């Protein structure tokens, strides 16, 4: 069985089968991620603070972390989103262009049984929203209506890099220039 790493709400990684997590966190990047209960987006940033070497995995992480530091210490959760779900999509594309297969990660909001886009929300509004791991979605020939879902696993690298990429789109200015 693949090695697992448990991500705690306070940002600490625990790897029962690997005693060297604190000393060499990079060795855990290929481990399967398990999220503990009460894991939130804030826990993700706490992990970056506990293991600063992860900040180098994605060019956007230092800036995202800086913005995280400016956010309130609690109660950052929009009423409109129940949880944030990290998932993976495999998409077969047949037309236009040459046939291709793409695999990418997705971070989306979940409300009841529906998924919602989280781009419009600033990071500060999402920090205390619980994060969960979703299923692998297989889209067949570019038609999102025709898809299958499978249980899957995520590595720590996929998790960190995927969240960094998704959050890098949350770039709306804090205030608009209108009326100035």
């Amino acid at each position, binding site marked *: 069985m693949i090695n697992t790493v448990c991500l705690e709400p306070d940002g600490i990684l625990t790897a029962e089968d690997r005693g060297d997590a604190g000393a060499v966190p990079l060795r855990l990047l290929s481990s399967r991620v398990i999220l503990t209960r009460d894991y939130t987006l804030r826990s993700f940033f706490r992990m970056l603070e506990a293991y600063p070497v992860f900040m180098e995995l994605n*060019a956007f992480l230092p*800036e995202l972390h800086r913005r995280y530091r400016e956010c309130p210490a609690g109660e950052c959760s929009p009423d409109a989103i129940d949880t944030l779900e990290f998932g993976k999509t495999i998409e077969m594309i047949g037309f236009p262009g040459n046939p291709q297969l793409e*695999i*990418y990660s*997705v971070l989306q909001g979940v409300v009841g049984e529906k998924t919602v886009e989280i781009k419009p929300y600033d990071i500060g509004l999402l920090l205390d929203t619980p994060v969960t791991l979703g299923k692998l979605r297989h889209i067949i020939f570019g038609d999102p209506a025709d898809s299958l879902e499978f249980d899957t696993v995520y590595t720590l690298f996929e998790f960190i890099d995927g969240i960094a990429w998704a959050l890098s789109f949350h770039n709306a200015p804090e*205030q608009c*220039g209108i009326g100035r």
Partner: protein
Amino acid sequence: MFKKILFATTASPTCDNAARVAFDLAVKYEAQLYVMHVYGIPTRGFGPFATDVRTGETDDYGRDYEAWVEEEIRTTYEKQLAKTKNCVVQTRVGVPHTEILRAARKLDVDLIVMGAHSREEEVGATRFRNVLGDTMQRVAQKARCPVLIISRPCANCFWYFSNIVMGIDFTKASMSAFLFALKVAREVGCKLYLFHAADLSGVHVGKMPGQPTIEKEIEAARKKIEEMYVSQMGDFDNYEIDIWEGVPYVEILKYAREKMADLIVMAHHTRDIDPDEALLGSTVEQVVLRAAAPVASVNRPDKVA
């Protein structure tokens, strides 16, 4: 400032943000607006069928079909059309980028406004695909006028905008972009931020130069900006120069956010190559994807001064 504007649209929700800016611009500058939609590739040139560029299906096309498409576009933009005096809706059959470029050339437009791509992408997928649609890429590559790319909602930027960020990379195309940015800043009377991101990572991955080298590079870049760009500004003094070191697209996005930029102007590509050969640089693509403000991509010296 803009006398003729071409708004190329798929008339789908993905172009709504671009539509808002295009119509606002036309109203503000009392410009002639051409709303253009290209549908289907004609089979064998003069055949009675057109292949839908999205689905690959074959449709009959003729006057009835054309009238129906035009009616659809008028319905989509009903509210905006009611407020815009000089607006022409055009439909064409053909390869989208070819028809858009042909129309831009024939109509001698000052600006093309487009959405970044023709389908809604999940943000994860954008990493693997052409971030900007093929049509957008090809139009930006060949267009003689600046191309305004709108990928995010932008509330009335061109009505009230007060901060332009110009991403400088010292190429020929960058000079054209600068002239466009200066022209807009003068006309609107807003502040122009001349920004250069010094990418000092070099070719040796992970090997960063020391602080003295970074400071020297930044000083050299500042001097170059003053010599190349500031010297051309004449009496325009509402500007600021900033140079940050780091990954260019990350730094431009950070800077634009800090300065609450309403418009980002960038050269089409980051190296001095033939404009006809130049694909949109990855820096521009990454910025277009994430910037809250519209991004003007400028590739040539025409229509900028």
